[in-house]
C-alpha cells in the first residue's frame, strides 16, 4: 500500500511545486517557480530556491557607494581572497552564480585591467550567496551580497521606487559597507561627501525603529583606493573627519555602530592608450584592508 502511494506523491509534489508561486527573497513578489529573475526587482530567484531547499534564512549585506568608487573590485576581491585564504574567514559560494563576480574581477585584475563598469540594469548585476565560516562563529553564517550599480543607488535615493530592488534590499540588510573614494576626498571633491550623506539619510529613513532600525545596525565606511593616498591607512577615521565633515557629523549624530576602514587593491595605476581612449589600469595587484571591514561587519551581524 505504501509502495503504491509513493510514486503519485512525488509526481504530484513536482506538479504542485511548479504550480506554486515562489516569493522573491528580496522583494517578496510572487514569481513562477521556474523564473530566473524576480519579475519585479530582477533579483535572482536562486536565492529563494536555495533558502527553501537548504532551510536557511541568509542575512543580507550590501556594499554601496557612488559610481566608480570600487564596489565591484572590492566585492570581487573580497570573495577571491576569502576563498583562497581561509585562515580568518572561510567563504563558500552557494551556487555557481555566486562565483561569477569573483571570477570576472580576478581575471580582469590578473590581466592588468579593472573589471568592466557594472551596468545600471539590475538584471545584469551579480549577486553572491555564500556561507561564512570562522573559528569565532559557532554556526556558519549565510550571506547574500549584490554588486549594485552606483548610479542606480543614487537614482533610487533621489527618486524612490525607480529600482524596485534597492529599497527592500536595504530594508532587510543586516549591515552595509559604504565605500567612499579616498582619492577624490583627498583631491577636495565634495561629491563623495554629499553622496554619502544622501545614502546615510536614505538608510536612516528606511527603518527608523529605535532598536532594530539603521541607527543600531552596523555600518562600515571603507575609504577605497587608499593605495593612492597612504595617509588614509594611518587613520581612516581622522581622514574622513577632515576630508568629509558632512557625513562624518551625520554619522555621529544618527548612527551608533560604525567603523572606518581604508582599503586598496592596486599598488599603482597608469592609463593605457587604447583605440577607445585612455583606460585606467592597475600596474600590480596588492590588496590591503579588504578583509578587515568585512570581518568587522560579520562580527557585528553575528552579535
Amino acid at each position: 500500500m505504501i509502495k503504491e502511494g509513493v510514486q503519485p506523491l512525488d509526481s504530484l509534489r513536482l506538479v504542485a511545486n511548479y504550480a506554486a508561486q515562489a516569493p522573491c527573497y528580496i522583494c517578496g513578489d510572487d514569481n513562477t517557480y521556474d523564473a530566473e529573475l524576480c519579475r519585479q526587482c530582477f533579483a535572482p530567484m536562486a536565492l529563494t530556491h536555495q533558502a527553501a531547499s537548504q532551510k536557511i534564512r541568509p542575512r543580507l549585506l550590501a556594499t554601496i557607494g557612488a559610481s566608480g568608487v570600487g564596489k565591484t573590485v572590492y566585492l570581487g576581491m573580497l570573495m577571491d581572497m576569502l576563498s583562497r585564504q581561509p585562515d580568518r574567514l572561510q567563504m563558500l559560494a552557494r551556487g555557481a552564480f555566486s562565483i561569477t563576480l569573483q571570477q570576472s574581477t580576478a581575471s580582469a585584475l590578473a590581466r592588468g585591467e579593472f573589471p568592466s563598469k557594472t551596468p545600471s540594469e539590475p538584471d545584469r548585476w551579480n549577486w553572491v550567496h555564500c556561507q561564512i565560516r570562522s573559528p569565532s562563529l559557532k554556526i556558519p553564517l549565510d550571506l547574500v551580497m549584490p554588486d549594485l550599480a552606483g548610479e542606480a543607488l543614487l537614482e533610487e535615493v533621489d527618486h524612490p521606487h525607480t529600482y524596485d530592488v534597492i529599497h527592500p534590499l536595504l530594508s532587510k540588510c543586516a549591515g552595509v559597507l559604504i565605500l567612499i573614494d579616498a582619492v577624490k576626498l583627498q583631491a577636495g571633491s565634495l561629491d563623495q561627501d554629499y553622496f554619502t550623506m544622501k545614502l546615510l539619510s536614505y538608510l536612516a529613513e528606511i527603518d527608523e525603529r529605535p532598536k532594530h532600525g539603521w541607527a543600531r545596525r552596523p555600518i562600515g565606511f571603507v575609504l577605497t583606493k587608499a593605495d593612492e593616498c597612504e595617509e588614509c591607512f594611518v587613520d581612516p577615521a581622522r581622514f574622513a573627519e577632515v576630508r568629509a565633515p558632512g557625513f562624518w557629523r551625520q554619522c555621529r549624530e544618527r548612527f551608533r555602530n560604525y567603523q572606518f576602514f581604508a582599503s586598496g587593491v592596486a599598488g599603482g595605476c597608469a592609463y593605457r592608450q587604447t583605440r577607445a581612449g585612455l583606460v585606467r589600469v592597475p600596474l600590480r595587484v596588492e590588496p590591503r584592508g579588504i578583509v578587515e571591514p568585512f570581518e568587522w561587519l560579520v562580527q557585528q551581524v553575528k552579535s
Partner: protein
Amino acid sequence: MTAHDRRRWVYWMAGIAGAALASSWWMRWWGIVAWVCGALAWLALGCRGRPPAPREDDSPAADDIDDDDCPADGDAGDVESLVDGMLRQDRYALLLRRQVVGNLSVDQFSQARETLEDRMALVPEGQVTLARPDSERIDDRDTAEEQRFVQPLFLDRYPVTNAQYHQFVKAGGYQQMPLWDPQIWPAVLDFVDASGCPGPRFWKNGKFARGEAEHPVVGLSWYEAAAYARWVGKRLPSEAEWVKAASWPVPLSEEQQWQRKFPWGDTMDRQRCNLWGSGPGRTVAVTEYALGVSVGGVYQLIGNVWEWTSGTFGVVTADGEELSLPMPMKSIRGGAFDTYFENQATCQFESGENPLARRHNIGFRCALGLCDVAAHPGVSEEPPPAAQPCSAGVDGAQLPAAVTEPEGALV
C-alpha cells in the same frame, strides 16, 4: 640636535654646495667641486658632531645594532681603522675600487674580497630577453621581447636590510648631499621617518622596529635607495641585470636562450617565496625562503619586497599601446609579500612606481660591475674579464664623483 636644526643645517650645506656647483660650471671642475661640496658637508657635520642618536627611552622601537660597531666616516683616524669601519658598514665595494685597492694591505684586500664574494653573487655576461608588459597576452613574441646584453656583475645576494640601511642613516647619509642627485636635494628633507628623523618612512626616531634587523628595508624612495648604493660604492641594478640574475638564461643558439620564469624554474611554487597567501602577510628576514634562491645564489628575487631598479618604467606595451603614466616612474621588479597574482611575481614582470614614493613593500638590492672590482697589485690573481671602462648604471644610475674618485677620501 633636533630634526628642525638638522634641516636648517642641511639647507645651509645645500646652499654652499649649490654655489660650489655653480662655480664649477664655469670652471668645468665637476668632480673636484662635487667632492669638495661633499667634504664640506662631511666636515661640517663632523664639527657639529654627528646627529646624536635618539635617546633609547625616546624610542618605542629599539634596534638591534650596537652603535659602537658603526663608526661614522668622520671617525677615521687612520686608513686601517677606516678600512675596518667600512668593512663593518658593508662598504667593501669602495675598498675594491681600482683607485683605492692599492692603499690596502693584502689582508685588508682579501678580507674585502671575501666579503664581496660572501655578500654578492656573480652574474656572468650574456644575452637576456626582456619581455615588455602585456607580452603574455599577445602571440607575436618578436614585438613583445627585447634582447639586451649584460656585462658581468655582482648582485647582492639579499635585499638591503634594515640593519644595513641603519649604518647609512647613522653615518649621516641623509646629510651627505653628494650622494644624492642634485635635483632631489629639496626633497631629501622630506625623507623622514614617522618621528620626523631622516630615515625610512616606517622607522621611528631613526630606528627600525625591534626584531626586524634582518628584514628588507622598506618605505624608502628610489632616490634613497640610489643614495645608499652610492654610499656603499655600488649602484642599483639595471632591469636587464636584474632579470638576468633571476632568470639565468641558458643559450640555446646565437639568437635564442632559455630563461626561467621563476628563479627556481618554470612553475610557481609558493613555498619558495613570500607572496600573498604563502607568507605571513608582511616582510620576513632576507635569509628566509632559501628554496627560492636563484641559480647564481641570489635570495628572494621573487617575493618579500619589490625591488627598485635603475630603469625607467616602460611606456609602450607589447601591442603598441602607450602607457600613460601620471608621473615618471622607475621600474620595480620581483613582487612583494602582498603581491596577489602569480603572473605578477615572475622574473619578467615589471611594474612601476613614482621614484619619490616610499611604499611599505618596496625595497632594493645593489649591484656592482665586475669591471669595478680591481685586483690587488700584491696578489697574483686573474684580472677582471672586462678590462674596458665599466658601463655602470646602464639605465642612468651613474656613480657620483665622490665614489668614482675616492682617493682623496681614503688616502
